[in-house]
């Protein structure tokens, strides 16, 4: 997992100091926890939750220790994004771009009319806000890549690191939500269209899948074993 130490670009001495600071903080938290147990007991109350959590925390710590013990710390430059992760993200960005050119939903024809298809870029050509909204929905990976090209500063790196999964999830939700967004307003003004349910089309499936691929690639990069040494 990409830790805060990687994001802050800490070297090995700083990481050791960070671990020691974490240890000190844990000891302080433990002391406060024990004080709370003593406080409750001295006031005649049974600190059930506080006591029950002691073995839970102990087991959690043991579990984490065993997990990290089994991980390699090889110093092979694992802090850099692997080619596979970058390829996954790039493929997802390309698929999302293709999805933006396909129909997102269709409305079955009724009373002799043909089926109507909803293409993203034709949804609100006159509305600059809607156009911008769609651009963010389908082209957000380009924005992230652009930010990455701007520099590898600590703040920028941290921002993009946490923005990526949020943007991917947000984009998928919006793509699924587009038909509802359009038809909700029509239902209010035209009761005749109420029984018509928009059906998701290829663009919708592809858009959601592309965001899913991006999320999986991000997760693969995030959970990749990290090195202690950053050379």
């Amino acid at each position, binding site marked *: 997992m990409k830790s805060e130490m990687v994001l802050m670009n800490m070297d090995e*001495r700083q990481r050791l100091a960070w671990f020691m600071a974490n240890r000190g903080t844990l000891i302080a938290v433990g002391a406060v926890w024990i004080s709370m147990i003593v406080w409750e007991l001295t006031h005649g109350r049974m600190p059930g939750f506080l006591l029950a959590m002691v073995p839970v925390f102990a087991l959690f710590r043991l579990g984490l220790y065993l997990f990290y013990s089994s991980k390699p710390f090889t110093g092979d430059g694992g802090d850099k994004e692997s080619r596979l992760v970058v390829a996954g993200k790039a493929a997802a960005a390309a698929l999302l771009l293709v999805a933006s050119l396909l129909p997102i939903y269709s409305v079955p024809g009724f009373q002799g009319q043909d089926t109507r298809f909803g293409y993203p870029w034709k949804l609100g050509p006159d509305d600059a806000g809607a156009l911008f909204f769609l651009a963010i929905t389908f082209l957000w990976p380009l924005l992230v890549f652009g930010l990455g090209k701007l520099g590898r500063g600590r703040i920028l790196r941290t921002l993009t690191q946490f923005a990526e999964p949020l943007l991917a999830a947000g984009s998928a939700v919006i793509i699924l939500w587009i038909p509802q967004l359009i038809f909700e307003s029509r239902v209010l003004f035209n009761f005749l269209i109420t029984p018509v349910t928009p059906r998701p089309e290829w663009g919708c499936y592809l858009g959601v899948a592309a965001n899913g691929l991006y999320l999986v690639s991000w997760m693969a990069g995030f959970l990749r074993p990290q090195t202690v040494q950053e*050379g």
Partner: protein
Amino acid sequence: MKLRNHIKQHRARLNLTQQDLAERTGVRRQTILAIEKGHFIPSALLAFLIARELGMTVDEVFEISEIKNEQEPTP
């Protein structure tokens, strides 16, 4: 046992500052300072990187010195 080093001498020979060496090895200047003063023992990888940047081998830059009053462990 203690890890001694000759980083400072080799830096001076190459006219390198701590900052220069830190940038070349991907660590902070304070880390180079801590290693030079013997306050921090670097990982094997960093030791190799430092030696490489100084144009030396690891055992020319670092050496283990015995502390005189250290007690030998009983078998």
